[in-house]
C-alpha cells in the first residue's frame, strides 16, 4: 500500500485527476462522463504510440522515426483504400501493422547488426520515411472524398459507449501490460535497460531485445498510421509532423527514464493522458490555446526534475545503520 502511494504513477494520476476536477469547477460539465470519454478517445493514439516508445526507451534507445513511420504507413493504406475500396478494412489494418513492422525492422536491423546508435538511425529514417510519402503519393493528399466510408468508420463505431479507437487503445494497453510484466521478453526489455552487461550474463541477447522493441514500436506506429488517417480523414506528407517529440514527452512525463530500465505501462498511459487533458482543458477554461505549448513544456521539465529526485542516491550503503534506516 505504502509503495503504491509513493509511486510516481500514483502522483501523476492524482495530478491528472486534480486537473480534471479543477477544470470542472471553472467549467462545469468538463468532467461529464461523455466529455471524459472524448478526452480519452482523443488521447488514444498518443497512448498507443507512447507505449511503443516506452519499450524502446526502456532499452536505452530512442525511436525518432515513429511519427514518420505512422505517416508513411497511413499514406500507404490510404492509397490502397483509394485504389481498391473493396479490400476489407481489418485486412488493411493488419497490413498497416505489417508495414509499420517492416519499417521498424529496418531501424532495428541497423541498430542490432551494425551497432549504430538508435538516435542516429532513427534521425535518418525520420526524414527518409517522410520523404518516401511524397514519392509514393506523387505529392498529393488523400482527402476524405477518396477514402471509403468503411475506412473512416472503423475508428468510430461505438461499442459500449466508447468509439472503436478507444477500444484499440485499451486492448493495446492491456496487451502491453501483459507483455511487460508477464512475459520473458518484457522482463528482458527492462533488464537490458537496467544493466546490459548483467543481461548478457543472464543469457539475454541485448541486440535482439533492442531489435524486438523496434519491431514493437514500428508495429504500433503502423497501426496508428491507419488510425490517424481514418480519424482525421486525411493522408498527407505533413501527417503527425513533429509528433515524435510529443510521444517522447508523454513518456518522460510518465516517468520513463531516458537512461533506460525504469518506467511502467501505467506511467506511459498517464503521461499521454496528462498531455491530452491539458489539450482539452485549456480552451474550456478560456485559456488561449497559445498557452498550451508552454504549459506542456513546463510540465515536461517539472516531471524530469521530480523524477530525478526519486532516483538520486547512487551510494552503496556500506554502513550497516544506513541500510537499516533506508
Amino acid at each position, binding site marked *: 500500500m505504502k509503495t503504491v502511494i509513493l509511486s510516481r504513477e500514483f502522483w501523476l494520476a492524482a495530478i491528472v485527476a486534480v486537473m480534471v476536477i479543477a477544470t470542472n469547477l471553472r467549467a462545469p460539465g468538463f468532467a461529464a462522463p461523455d466529455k471524459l470519454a472524448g478526452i480519452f478517445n482523443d488521447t488514444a493514439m498518443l497512448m498507443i504510440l507512447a507505449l511503443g516508445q516506452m519499450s524502446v526507451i526502456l532499452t536505452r534507445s530512442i525511436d525518432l522515426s515513429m511519427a514518420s513511420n505512422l505517416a508513411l504507413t497511413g499514406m500507404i493504406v490510404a492509397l490502397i483504400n483509394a485504389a481498391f475500396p473493396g479490400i476489407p478494412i481489418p485486412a488493411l489494418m493488419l497490413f498497416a501493422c505489417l508495414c509499420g513492422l517492416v519499417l521498424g525492422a529496418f531501424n532495428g536491423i541497423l541498430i542490432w547488426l*551494425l551497432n*549504430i546508435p538508435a538516435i542516429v538511425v532513427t*534521425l535518418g529514417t525520420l526524414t*527518409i520515411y517522410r520523404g518516401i510519402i511524397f514519392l509514393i503519393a506523387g505529392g498529393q493528399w488523400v482527402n476524405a472524398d477518396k477514402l471509403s466510408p468503411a475506412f473512416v468508420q472503423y475508428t468510430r463505431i461505438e461499442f459500449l459507449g466508447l468509439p472503436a479507437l478507444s477500444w484499440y487503445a485499451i486492448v493495446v494497453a492491456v496487451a502491453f501490460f501483459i507483455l511487460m510484466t508477464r512475459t520473458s521478453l518484457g522482463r528482458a526489455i527492462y533488464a537490458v535497460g537496467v544493466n546490459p552487461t548483467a543481461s548478457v550474463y543472464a543469457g539475454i541477447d541485448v541486440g535482439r531485445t533492442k531489435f524486438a522493441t523496434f519491431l514493437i514500436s514500428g508495429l504500433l506506429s503502423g497501426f496508428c498510421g491507419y488510425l490517424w488517417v481514418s480519424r482525421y480523414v486525411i493522408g498527407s506528407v505533413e501527417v503527425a509532423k513533429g509528433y515524435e517529440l510529443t510521444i517522447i514527452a508523454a513518456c*518522460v512525463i510518465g516517468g520513463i527514464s531516458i537512461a533506460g530500465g525504469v518506467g511502467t505501462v501505467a506511467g506511459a498511459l498517464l503521461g499521454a493522458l496528462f498531455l491530452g487533458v491539458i489539450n482539452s482543458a485549456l480552451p474550456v477554461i478560456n485559456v488561449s490555446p497559445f498557452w498550451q505549448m508552454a*504549459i506542456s513544456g513546463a510540465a515536461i521539465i517539472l516531471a524530469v526534475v521530480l523524477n530525478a529526485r526519486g532516483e538520486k542516491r547512487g551510494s552503496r550503503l556500506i554502513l550497516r545503520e544506513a541500510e537499516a534506516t533506508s
Partner: protein
Amino acid sequence: MTDITHEARHIPDRLESPLRGAVFSWPTLLLIVGVVLFIVNSLASPYFLSPWSLSDATFNFTEKAIIALAMALLIIAGEIDLSVASIIALASTAMGVALQFGVGVPGLVTIGILTGLICGVFNGFLVTGLGLPSIVVTIGTMSFFRGISYIVLGDQAFKGYPAGFDYFGQGYVWWVVSFEFTLFLVFALLYYVLLHHTNFGRQVFTIGNNPVAARFSGVRVERVKFILFCLTGLMSGIAAVLLTSRLASTRPSIAVGWELEVVTMVVLGGVSILGGSGTIQGVVIAAFIMGLVTFGLGLLNVPGIVMSIFIGALLICVIALPILWARMRRRAAR
C-alpha cells in the same frame, strides 16, 4: 618477459605523420563527397555554377550551421540541445517586443543575443545544476521557449524592423559574399581553434570520452558543460538575429523543426552522437554538403521533402559504411 629493464627506453611521439592521419580522416571522406556533389550539381543544372546562385545557396544553411558549430562541441561532450530552434523563436520574439518599445538596431541585436544566452543558461542550469539528462530537458525547454513565444505573439507577427537591421540577414560584405556567410566562416575558425587548440577543447573531448575519468582528473565537468550550453544558446541567439533580419519579421513558428536538422548536420560531420570525437572541419563540410544537396536538387525543382531522403540516407550511409568496411576487412583478415 617479467624482468625489469631500467635502461631508458625511447618511445616515439608519433608513428605516422599527422598529415597522413589527416588524409584518411572523416573530413577528407566528407570533402570527397562534397566535391562529387559539387560536380554532379554543376553537370545537372546549368544555373548552378553562377556566383550569385552559390551565394544564394549559402542562405539556406548558414544560420543552422552557425548553431551546429556550438552543438558539435556540446555533442562531443556527450550532451545535446534540442531547444535551439525554439531559442531562435524566443530570441526573435524578444527582439520583436523590444521593437515595439522603439529600441534601435544595436539594442535589438543585443537583446536577441542575450535572450539566446539566457536560454542557454537555463538549459545549462537544468542539466548540470540539477543533473538531469539533457535530451529530455531540452525536449521540455523546446516546448517551453517556443510556448512563451506563442503566448506573447499569439496569432500576431512583429514586423517593421528598422532600416539597417536588414543588413545582418540580407547584406553583403563584398560582392556576392553575404554578411551571414562571412560570420559563419569567422565562427568556424574560432570554434576550430577553441575545440582543437585550447585546453578547453581538450577538456570537452575528455568529458565526452569518459566523464568520470575527466572528473577524477580535475576537469570541472559540470562547469565545462554549462559553458557549452551557454555557447549553444548564444549561437542560437545570433542565428535568431540573422534569421529575423532575413525574414524581416517574427512569428512564433519561426525556424520550426530546425533542431533535428542541426543535429543531423553535426552527426553527418562525423561527430559521434555518443560523444568523445569529432571535428569542426567535418561539421563545416557537412554544412556545405547539406547546402549543396538541397540547393542542387532545388534547382531541379525537386521538392524539399524528397531532398530529405538524400540527407537521411547519407546520414545512415556515412555512419554504416565505415562499420561495414571494417567488418569486411576483419573477415577478410581471418
